[in-house]
């Protein structure tokens, strides 16, 4: 592949503008490879030592028609000199394969007012008069902002190498970006090799040629470069998305069975596991539906090691009855819900945090269980180890609430150092000591030892009917009261083992922002900005939602106001008909009001995209004395 090697001979005489961070996006029609280009750029940046956060830009339809704003598909990468914890506010540099998809981004407010836009310019001279007119109209609309528009003859250039430039200009775009941001070309080449590992050597070499073409074109034609200095990498890091982290975490926890039914955005956990799980002695069972998936996981857990099931909103709803059963028979189970917009089919590919109350209260009857929400991609890995262990120790259902933002976001994090202790112990089929019953509830803690099939002397029938310590069906009120208390008590015991959460910022002040799940990075960035402006604002991020982490009331008391920031729907106080009594509030705020009796306010949005730190900052300002004027 010598002749395909990228030459770095091009004169580098364009001085680079230094930035502490920059946000780049590549947008195209679906199927033009913008995502692959962005993924490679993001991975290379992470490996060079930049902080990175990536977000997929996904059209609603699988095959939208070409050149329509709704069809915008792509990838956004925010890179920084230091760690990057969220997708930021707006894009500083965009590469677009047509002007229509760029318009969509412009209309969404996704582009910074002074963004640099590199646009495929072949449409300006298209044979079709309608296309030319659309181009002209778009240029007029974009001209309203202070964008710097750079037309690029991407396909025309690529034609020198490939017959169908539509398939290949993503590598040309990658070459341009590599030049602009001075990416390490050896790493770019390695990453291309990895990304196309299932394709032929010819394809690889063609891609390298296209990469070089883009790189050289940029060197010859562009008069700007941007430098976001990578930090020297001092500790071992890994870079992956949240769903891969969940899958790897499940492996590290020693679980061996994942039962699921395909549903976006949860499915890619099983895509990942499907590839590697068997090497770890595990299997992914694709069940006939989500109910069956829950049943299979429960059956496996009942018979031995804790199993898990993965789903998203609609599938979660279907599992409800089985979750109640697992709670009743105290079978340990881990359920991952990768949240998306709802109700119903909702926004299948977009982030939302609106399953919290359904997760907590969705099972008819009293079915106490644990809910944990990882806040970062790193936590997606570690949460699985905690979840498995808690499920086992407390004989309970543990729900892990992730979301589409974590699922598809990619960021580097400290490489976990796997520990054999994280894994479930091998099955112990020793005979059950005589006198031990199916649920020997400790009357104080509600905890009991599990008995599994294969253990001599432990035979009993588990039942979803109300039962006593011996699993004997009992309808008497005393038994049901006691069983309910024992299953509930376990949560209080778990809470007693948790430490009070740490406030981000000062421990007292005018305003406390409380969040959960994937919004952590954006909330803390907004808090940083507010504090830099002199405001007395702090934040608190909860991982345990059931039981809630201890000490919240004391923390809240030290702030004038407390409000939650969440990606779920709530009424605005000044909307028509809305009163303080009928206002439907953010889901976490409801739980916090109940647990602390503090008048916790909320600011929630359901934009179908992650929250922007700038928008959170506005919400913070609006709640500060004097409207948060600096």
């Amino acid at each position, binding site marked *: 592949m010598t002749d395909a090697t990228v030459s770095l001979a091009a004169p580098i005489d364009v001085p680079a503008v230094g930035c502490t961070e920059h946000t780049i996006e590549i947008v195209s029609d679906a199927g033009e490879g913008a995502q692959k280009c962005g993924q490679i750029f993001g991975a290379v940046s992470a490996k060079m030592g930049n902080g990175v956060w990536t977000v997929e830009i996904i059209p609603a339809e699988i095959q939208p028609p070409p050149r329509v704003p709704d069809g915008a598909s792509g990838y956004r990468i925010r890179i920084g000199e230091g760690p990057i914890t969220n997708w930021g506010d707006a894009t500083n540099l965009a590469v677009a394969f047509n002007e229509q998809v760029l318009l969509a981004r412009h209309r969404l407010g996704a582009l910074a007012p002074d963004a640099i836009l590199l646009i495929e310019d072949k449409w300006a001279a298209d044979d079709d008069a309608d296309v030319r007119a659309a181009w002209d109209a778009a240029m007029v609309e974009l001209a309203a902002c202070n964008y710097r528009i750079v037309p690029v003859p991407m396909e025309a250039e690529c034609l020198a190498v490939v017959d169908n430039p539509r398939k290949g200009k993503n590598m040309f775009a990658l070459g341009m970006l590599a030049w602009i941001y001075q990416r390490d070309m050896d790493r770019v080449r390695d990453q291309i090799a990895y990304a196309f590992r299932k394709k032929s050597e010819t394809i690889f070499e063609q891609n390298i040629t296209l990469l070089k073409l883009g790189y050289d074109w940029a060197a010859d034609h562009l008069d700007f470069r941007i430098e976001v200095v990578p930090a020297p*990498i001092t500790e071992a890091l890994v870079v992956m998305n949240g769903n891969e982290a969940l899958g*790897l975490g499940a492996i590290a926890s020693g679980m061996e069975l994942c039962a699921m039914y395909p549903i976006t955005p949860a499915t890619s956990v099983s895509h990942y596991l499907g590839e590697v799980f068997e090497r*770890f002695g595990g*299997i992914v069972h694709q*069940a006939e539906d989500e109910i069956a998936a829950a*049943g*299979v996981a429960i*059956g496996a857990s009942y018979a031995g090691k804790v199993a898990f099931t993965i789903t998203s909103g609609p599938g979660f709803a279907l599992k409800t009855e089985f979750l109640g059963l697992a709670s009743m028979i105290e079978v340990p189970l881990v359920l991952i819900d990768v949240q998306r917009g709802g109700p119903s089919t909702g926004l299948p590919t977009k982030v939302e945090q609106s399953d919290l109350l359904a997760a907590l209260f969705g099972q008819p009857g009293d079915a106490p269980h644990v809910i944990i929400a990882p806040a970062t991609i790193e936590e997606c890995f570690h949460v699985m180890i905690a979840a498995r262990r808690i499920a086992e120790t407390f004989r309970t259902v543990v729900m892990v609430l992730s979301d589409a933002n974590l699922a598809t976001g990619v960021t580097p994090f400290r490489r976990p150092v796997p520990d054999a202790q994280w894994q479930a112990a091998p099955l112990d089929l020793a005979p059950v000591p005589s006198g031990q019953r199916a649920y020997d509830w400790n009357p104080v803690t509600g905890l009991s030892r599990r008995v599994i099939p294969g253990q001599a002397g432990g035979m009993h*029938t588990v039942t*979803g009917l109300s039962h006593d310590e011996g699993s004997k069906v009992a309808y008497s009120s005393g038994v049901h009261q006691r069983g309910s208390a024992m299953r509930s008590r376990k949560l209080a015991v778990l809470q007693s083992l948790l430490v009070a959460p740490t406030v981000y910022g000062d421990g007292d002040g005018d305003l406390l922002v409380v969040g959960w799940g994937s919004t952590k990075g954006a909330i803390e960035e907004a808090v940083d900005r507010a504090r830099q402006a002199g405001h007395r604002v702090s934040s608190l991020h909860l991982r345990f939602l059931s039981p809630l982490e201890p000490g919240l009331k004391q923390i809240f008391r030290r702030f004038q106001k407390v409000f939650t920031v969440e990606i779920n729907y709530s009424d605005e106080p000044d909307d028509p008909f809305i009163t303080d009594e009928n206002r439907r509030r953010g889901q976490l705020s409801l739980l916090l009001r109940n647990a602390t009796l503090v008048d916790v306010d909320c600011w929630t949005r359901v934009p179908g995209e992650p929250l922007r730190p700038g928008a959170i900052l506005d919400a913070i300002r609006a709640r500060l004395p004097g409207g948060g004027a600096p």
Partner: protein
Amino acid sequence: MTAACGLLPVLDQEEDTPSYEMSDYEGARARWCPGCGDHSVLTAVQRLLAAEQLKPEQTVFVSGIGCSSRFPHYLSTYGFHGIHGRALPVATGIRLHRPDLRVFVVMGDGDCTSIGAGHWVHAMRYNLDMVVMLLDNAIYGLTKNQTSPTTPQGFRSNTQPHGSWLPALNPLSVALGVTNASFVAQTAEWVPSHLYATLRAAYAHRGLGFVRILQRCPMYSSAVYQAAVQDPARIGLLVHDDGVVVPDLEKVYTTQVAHDPHDLDAARRLAGVTDRIHLGVLFRDPSRPRYEEIRRVAPRTAEERLVELNLELDRYAV
């Protein structure tokens, strides 16, 4: 009585020392109505367990919800009395994770052919090694007399007091229609020797042994099977060396139908016959792939996992 050759390799198994009597498999006192056909099935199953000398701790009975699903409580094995219609997924999870356990599934007709019909179809196709019993009383017993998919057309119930609106669903035809089904049999609880021999054949079969058991409900649907109970001529025994052979039974059930259980087309034709009830093995093909074997993976120790995990993390290393 001897059951058929070939089907019962377990008989040659070495005897393990503690030997179990039928009574060793008794659990709580059965609380079905007097005259309920479920009692007879329970006895046949206990007989089977004793004949096979199954260790109670190695045996799991999984059921859904219904009168028939109370079954596991009345045994001394492990039992899983779960939720309505969902016994099969639970049993699937148990088998996938613990192939060392012997798994039996007990379902009612509502359980299996209505709310759990999806799981039923797919379980037949997965063809896990377990015995699946459909206790078909053609009515919802536990919830007191509602029409089930197998209720005969015109038969009155509380939910369809003018008689069931539609022709009954035929569980045998459905089961035989599923790709990769490997064992489909029918028996009746009022012919205990046939019931027992059929369950043994299903147990001996490697793969999912589906047995529809015609079962009387004295409270709500005794009329459904009354004619067949009173008039053995309405019953045809399927006979074949590789099916269920119960000596002496032909003295009562004089209609014998020679049927090779490997002939799927013939099985489907027999399943569709409406003027006679056929008892016996309709279909059996032990060569069908079993999902649990296809999916079996080598177990890993914690240390082996750590090694692999570090390799996997290397793949993601920055």
